[in-house]
Each structure stands twice: as structure tokens, then as C-alpha cells.
């Protein structure tokens, strides 16, 4: 029945259009509920642009929901408003975990929140990257920025393993390398709760077998991660983000190293615990 076939194909296109439209509306509806102080043109004082966020989240929606099929556990531990620090492990060559954590706070929180990251300094010098990073809410990784954002009651993403973390190879993907201690002093100084987050799967999505440090230096990045298939494109691995209960520490941020290191160890342990919980669940599944 050619008529019916034509009708069906017509209908299918339509439903696809409707679905595309619906997902677009959803992103905009969520953007409206963000508590950012946008001006009349949709810009906030840090230069975050509503338009750029809309493009970014629309682009991310498919990969977040369909490609990586991200699952969150305990996202209710993230406070719905007010300052907080999401402290997460890093793995998988590039900062894919940061993007997905940002996605989780936007797509899976109610009301949604914008998780703002601290970008590596070299990114600010790269054309386009610099612009997009700034307009989607991320600032250069400076302690001044962290303090300012937290005192502005924003949600800050911190990866205390830094570039050492993204440089983990496939076989090291579930390990934690040395944590920086700056984040803890900042949390104490600004009296911000720390929410430990474990990201599972990014190490498998981008299975790094080697890092090219020399070539990286030549092009102005810390290193270039290499996968067995050479490309940097992530594999469709299911990603899981597990959020632990908030950790509240008290202090001034000027304590001696032993005090700070003990607290950092506590954060690291809670993230390690979330990782092993997630791993045993993944392996039994």
C-alpha cells in the first residue's frame, strides 16, 4: 500500500521532528529554571551566555542520554541552591567526566543547576575553546575564581587530580592519583560543603594506552592521549555518576599541612568508596 507507506514515512518524520522539538523545549525550560542572574540578553556577570548554554546542552543531551546512557546515584546529595563543591575523580584522557557531571546537574537535578568548572590555564589561550569554555560557565583554574564563585553561591566542580588524573591510562582507570590540597583550603575558607563524586566509565570510554607529552608540548597542551584506535572519539560505554553525602569541614583554610592532608584523605577515601561500590555493582550486573 504505497499510500499507507507514504503516510507512515510522513508520520515518522513528523514524530521525529516533534521529538527533536520536545527535547529542545526541555533544554530551554530547564535553562529558565537555572538561578543564574542573566541580564536582558541572557548574559551573567561572568559572561555565561544563555544562548551558548542552550546550544551546548542540546548538543550534549543526545550523548548524555543515548550514547553514554548516564546513570546517576545519590544526586539528591547536591544542594538545590547555595555554594557547594563537587569533588570528582578524573579519568579518560580528556575532561569528559567534567562535561557529564555538568550534564548530570543540568538534566537530572530538579531544579537544574549549572556546575561550573575550573579549566586548565592552557585552554584560555586556545581560540574557540577559550570562548566556549567561558560562555558555558567555566573559569580559568585560579584560586581567586573558586573563592569568587563560591561566595556567589555557585556550584563548583573540582577535580583535585588535575591533569595527572586525565593522564591515567586504561589499566589505571579506577585508581586515584595524588589529590591537590588547594581545594580543601578553599572549602574551609568559604565554608562550602564538599560533595564527593565518583565518575565510572570515562576511563573505559576513552581507553588511553599512552600519552604523548612531547607532541603535546609542541602544540601547547600538556599531552595528547592515544587510544588503540588512535582517534580520541569516546566509545559508547555506560557512564555512572555516584554522589556521596556532603562532607562539612570547619576551619579557616590556614591550618598546617597535616590537618589539611587528613581532610583531603577523608575526601579521597569517600570517592574511593563510591568507586568501589560502583565497580562491584557494574561487575555483578
Amino acid at each position, binding site marked *: 500500500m504505497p499510500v499507507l507507506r507514504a503516510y507512515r514515512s510522513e508520520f515518522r518524520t513528523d514524530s521525529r521532528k516533534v521529538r527533536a522539538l520536545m527535547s529542545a523545549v526541555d533544554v530551554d525550560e530547564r535553562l529558565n529554571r537555572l538561578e543564574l542572574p542573566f*541580564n*536582558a*540578553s541572557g*548574559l*551573567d*556577570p*561572568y*559572561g555565561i*551566555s544563555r544562548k551558548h548554554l542552550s546550544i551546548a546542552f542540546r548538543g550534549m543531551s543526545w550523548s548524555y542520554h543515548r550514547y553514554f546512557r548516564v546513570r546517576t546515584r545519590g544526586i539528591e546529595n547536591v544542594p538545590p541552591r547555595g555554594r557547594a563543591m563537587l569533588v570528582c575523580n578524573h579519568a579518560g584522557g580528556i575532561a569528559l567526566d567534567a562535561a557529564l557531571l555538568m550534564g548530570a546537574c543540568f538534566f537530572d537535578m530538579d531544579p537544574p543547576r549549572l556546575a561550573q568548572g575550573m579549566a586548565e*590555564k592552557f585552554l*584560555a*589561550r*586556545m*581560540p*574557540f*575553546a*577559550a*570562548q566556549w569554555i*567561558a*560562555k558555558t560557565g567555566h*573559569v*580559568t583554574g*585560579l584560586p*581567586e*575564581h573558586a573563592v*569568587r564563585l563560591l561566595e556567589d553561591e555557585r556550584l563548583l566542580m573540582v577535580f583535585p587530580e588535575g591533569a595527572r588524573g586525565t593522564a591515567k591510562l586504561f589499566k589505571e582507570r579506577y585508581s586515584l592519583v595524588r589529590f591537590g590540597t588547594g581545594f580543601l583550603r578553599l572549602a574551609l575558607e568559604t565554608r562550602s560543603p564538599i560533595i564527593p563524586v565518583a565518575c565510572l566509565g570515562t576511563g573505559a570510554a576513552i581507553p588511553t594506552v599512552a600519552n604523548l607529552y612531547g607532541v603535546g608540548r609542541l602544540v601547547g597542551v600538556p599531552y595528547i592521549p592515544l587510544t588503540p584506535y588512535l582517534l580520541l572519539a569516546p566509545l559508547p560505554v555506560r557512564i555512572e555518576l555516584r554522589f556521596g553525602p556532603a562532607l562539612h569541614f570547619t576551619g579557616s583554610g590556614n591550618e598546617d599541612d597535616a590537618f589539611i592532608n587528613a581532610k583531603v584523605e577523608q575526601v579521597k577515601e569517600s570517592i574511593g568508596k563510591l568507586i568501589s561500590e560502583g565497580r562491584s555493582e557494574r561487575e555483578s550486573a
Partner: protein
Amino acid sequence: MKVLVTGVSGKIGRLVAEELVRQEHEVVGIDRRTWPEAPAGVRVFETDIRKRPAEDVFRTERPQAVIHMATVTHLVERSEERYRINLIGTKAVFDFAHRYGVKQAIFVGRHTYYGAAADAPLYHTEDEPPMALEIFPELVDLVAADLFAGMALWRFPNIDTAVLRICYTLGPARHGTLAAFLNGPRVPTILGFDPLFQFMHEEDVARAIVLSLTRGLRGVYNVAGPQPVPLSSLIRHTGRSLLQVPEPMYRVVLGRFGLPRLPVGALTHIKYPIVIDATTFKAASGFQHRFDEYETMHSFRDSPQLSARAG
């Protein structure tokens, strides 16, 4: 109060003088340029602040306060003379102020003091040092003048000195550094970069300067009004069109095809933002801007003034 304004014939100088007159202060001005239609209540002495007649003005007029605005940028004065105007001039103003019993001094400086750099914080606070001078040597004398003026706080404790680091000025006068950059129909930006720009309406700038005088501010203050906007929006809202040029080609096109001429160092200022935190100033003075960022950009766009003068 009798207020001496140096650089009174400049655009902002005139606005400051008019605001002072409106608030019933007596204004004495010093400038090398004339101000033929100066309003009643403003007397202009045509002289150079570094010269003897300028000292005579301090001696005979005995102002209670001085607002020092007679500094120039590389856009106006391209010679070695700029260093002398900015530094010897600032020294002269503070020396005379001290010698003739001035009670309050305001140095009108610029937010470009902080410099633009990829690894600089987004909102600069007053305690930060000037950066990126090695990239933009044309700013050195203004930075030195700013720091020299700040020294007056301990050199002359009897004078209440306020050093104001004011963001870019924009408005119907189409006057100043930013106006000069936005002068042509096409404004060149660097492909892949869209830094935040912070500016204030020229009338708000004049009000902020007068307010820091009447509130008797002492110390170093960042002065800014509405929130910053990305360069691309600034260009669009001022009725210009964006010409995105890849960085390696930028130096080649500058000064050609009707595009503005800029020193090489100025490139960092269109790649990275200079945004200041004016919280301290607003708390100390109670200042609130009257023109938001859009009203300011549109006042520049809709101005009958044909082309910009740098200053």
C-alpha cells in the same frame, strides 16, 4: 567647595566640571586646550600643569580639592612627551597640592592598569599588581602614574587621596579609547576569542568622580558600573559589524581597509578580558549607575557626533 580640575577641557573633564557646578561647587580648571563655552562657575586657565602658571593657579586660587585628569594615552600622544605629561604632571599636581594646602586629591586612572592576560583573574581587585606590561609597553607610564599617585597616601597624609581605576567610558560624545576602537563601521576581533568588555556611560563616570570627592574617599578604588558584555555584543549593540580576523593576520590588517590602528600590545586587550570588581567603591560611595550596559551602548550608537576622538 573650590575644586581644581586638571584636564578640564577634555570630554570627561567638562562633564565633571558641569556636575560640580550643578552641585554648587566652584570650579577652577587647568588645561592646555581651551573650553570656549565654559559654563558660569567654571574658570579655565590655559596652561600646562607642569609649568609655572599652573603653580600660580594653586597659589592664588587656593582650591580645597583637586581632581587630576590630565593624563594621556598612547592614542593621543605618541611621543616621548606622553611619559612627561603623565609622570611629571602627576608629580607636579601632588607637589602643588601639598604646598598650597589642598585637603583632597583625586587621581583619575584607568582599569587597563591591570593588563589583560590569559591567566589573570576575571574580576580584578585593588590589591593586584599591574600585569602584562611587557606585552603592552604603551601602558607603562599610566601604570607608573597610578602607583605614583597612590604613594601620596603615605607621602602626604594630610591630603585625602583617592586613586580611581575607572573602566572604559562610552557615550554620545564618542570619546575615549573604546570609542576610538569602535569608530569604524567594521570592528576587527580575533577569530575564536570573545572577551568581556566593561564600560560605563560618560555621565555615570563624571558622577562617580564627583561622588568620590563629596564622600571624601581615601585609598585605591576600582570604578565600574553595569555588568560587562562580550566584545561581539558590544560591537553589535553599537551598530557596528564584526570582522573576525585570524590572529596571525591581525597585525597585517590593522590600520588598513578603514580598520583602527592599534599598538601590537593592544591585541591582548581584544583577546582576554580586563574586568574589575568595584564592590569596595560602591560600598564606600553608595554609587549606582544610571545607564545600564544597553542604554550606554545605544547612546553611543545613536549619537549625532560623527566620529570618535581618542583621549
